[in-house]
């Protein structure tokens, strides 16, 4: 919030350049067709004045640009545009440009959508020639399809990721076992077996597409139930496509999360283990009390990434009939014989979901003190007095 206040109240070096872009957008909006509910339709002169104000801003900017090009080195000291009074005036001018652009956006953009919404609601069939009206028509008539799909996608991604995390914890312990001096033959055997299983699991799961995995797991377990003599209806009540999808996504994500955890654990300095062992802690105690708590911290960014991947990758589960967002989109496609518009809707919903998830995970990571540092950058703050 404070950042925003400082930004608005400060004089900026690039105010002409940045606001020119805004002014250009405003002019484009003004010259775009007027929607039915446009409120500026009643005040044509006002819009004309606003339009020419934007033009004036562009002219001023162009003048400044020419000056800058002509006096490349001395611009910062000689140009009339950098005098304090001029800079303050330019700042107020930029507010005006923004205000005009926002008014035009409300008139053309917001009112445009509202008009299209009204038109779509009045239509008896999906409008064929207007993209926006077509999408809104689908939303008005099939929003339930999409919300059901959305809920299933969220459930699959969240539960799948959480279950997979716990399974990955188990599996990674098997994976990182190394034979220690005090181990007897029995322990050695189980350690080797566990490690081998984890390696094989990871290779198989990560080496095959999740879509194919779903197409194997769902019918395979179906066949198992069939073996017990149940009827198809009984099995369908028990072994639903949702459950099949959840099992698939969990088993799939487990392999990836195990590798992420292993990477985190292996990046803990060897000295930590040595110090713990030198005090007499066993391999297991050193792992549990010292190495693992540090390793999981390294793994948090990778683990949270899995949730975002699962939100998107759950889309392949539509292949076994799991009613998630992609399936909803396909359903709408079938109803309207149009693939583009339902797909655009689901793309926007997926984008919204992943953005919310990544924002939440960012907060979560901050809670665990994981601070991502910008790569290769020092600071974007100007030196004091720099022009």
């Amino acid at each position, binding site marked *: 919030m404070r950042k925003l206040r400082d930004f608005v109240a400060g004089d900026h070096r690039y105010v002409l350049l940045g606001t020119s872009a805004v002014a250009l957008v405003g002019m484009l909006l003004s010259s775009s067709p007027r929607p039915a509910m446009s409120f500026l339709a009643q005040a044509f002169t006002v819009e004309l004045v606003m339009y020419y104000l934007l033009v004036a801003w562009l002219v001023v900017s162009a003048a400044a640009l020419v000056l800058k090009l002509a006096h490349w080195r001395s611009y910062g000291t000689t140009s009339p545009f950098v005098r304090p009074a001029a800079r303050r005036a330019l700042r107020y001018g930029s507010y005006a440009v923004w205000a005009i652009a926002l008014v035009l956006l409300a008139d053309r953009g917001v009112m445009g959508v509202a008009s299209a919404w009204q038109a779509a609601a009045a239509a008896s069939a999906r409008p064929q020639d207007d993209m926006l009206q077509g999408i809104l028509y689908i939303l008005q008539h099939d929003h339930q399809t999409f919300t059901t799909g959305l809920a299933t996608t969220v459930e699959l991604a969240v539960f799948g990721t959480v279950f997979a995390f716990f399974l990955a914890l188990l599996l990674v312990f098997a994976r990182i076992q190394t034979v220690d*001096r*005090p181990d007897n033959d029995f322990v050695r055997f189980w350690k080797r077996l566990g490690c081998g299983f984890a390696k094989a699991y990871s290779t198989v799961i990560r080496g095959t597409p999740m879509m194919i995995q779903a197409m194997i797991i769902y019918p395979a377990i179906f066949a198992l139930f069939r073996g017990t003599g149940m009827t198809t209806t009984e099995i369908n009540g028990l072994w639903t496509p949702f459950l099949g999808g959840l099992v698939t996504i969990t088993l799939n994500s487990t392999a990836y999360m195990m590798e992420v955890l292993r990477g985190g654990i292996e990046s803990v*300095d060897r*000295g*930590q283990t*040595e*110090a*713990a*062992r*030198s*005090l*007499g*802690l*066993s391999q297991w*105690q050193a792992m549990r*009390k*010292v190495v693992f*708590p*540090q390793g999981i*911290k390294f793994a948090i960014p990778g683990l949270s990434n899995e949730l975002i991947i699962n939100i998107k990758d759950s889309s392949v589960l539509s292949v076994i009939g799991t009613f998630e967002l992609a399936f909803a989109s396909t359903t709408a496609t079938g109803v309207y014989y149009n693939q583009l518009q339902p797909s655009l809707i689901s793309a926007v919903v997926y984008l919204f979901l992943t953005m919310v998830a990544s924002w939440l995970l960012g907060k979560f990571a901050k809670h665990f003190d994981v601070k991502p540092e910008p790569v290769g950058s020092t600071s974007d703050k100007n030196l004091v007095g720099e022009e």
Partner: protein
Amino acid sequence: MAEKNVTTAGAAGAGARFAEPMVRIEGLQKSFGDLEVLRDINLDVMPGQVVTIIGASGSGKSTLLRCINLLETPDAGHVWFHGADLAAEHVDVNRLREKIGMVFQGFNLFNNMNVLDNCTLAPVTLKKMKKAEAEEVAMRHLESVGLADFARADVNNLSGGQKQRVAIARALCMQPDLMLFDEPTSALDPEIVGEVLEVMRRLAAEGMTMVVVTHEMAFAKNVSDEVVFMDKGVIAEKGAPSKIFSAPEHPRTREFLARYLEG
């Protein structure tokens, strides 16, 4: 020096002639791949004795030290600790390590714990001490290294010298019979080397048995009972510090010390 001999006379002085060595190393061999790091090492450490191991980098000092608590597994030979052969199958290394404290060059404090928890982890986990009791012991040791005020501090916020003193306190909390120091001051800047050496000097004066790998020649000369000079994986020369530092026999020892005394 004289003062120290009084305190440890019972252990390392004349009376120790018949005592069993605490650590006996016999015919120790270790290689990493084709590189022979240790060749036929024989060394006894008597209770109460302070042994310093000096030598050039890569001469095998640290590996020898790490073989004593089996952080490195020897290829051949024996390491006896309190009469138990560490190489034997049935010996529980974890139990023996409880009695062997180790201090590392890179401190290796547990980054996920504060100072006090670093010290109490092993006693609580291994000796089944009550947390409060372990904390009391830990506070005593932190006090003795001058860091009682930092008990609740995050280890990542300490200076190098403070970290190393915590590491010493952490090892002492297990009440070890033997302390191994692997270049404890090499990662510190010269100004704070003193604070760590001071703690070690006091520990030696209290009669702790210590094996110290170091480049601090003054410490080797003034504090230790025996100095071992290693060269290319073998013990080139060992003896009382007075002898090693004033009349070294081996030409390599002379060369090595000459370089140190110049600098």
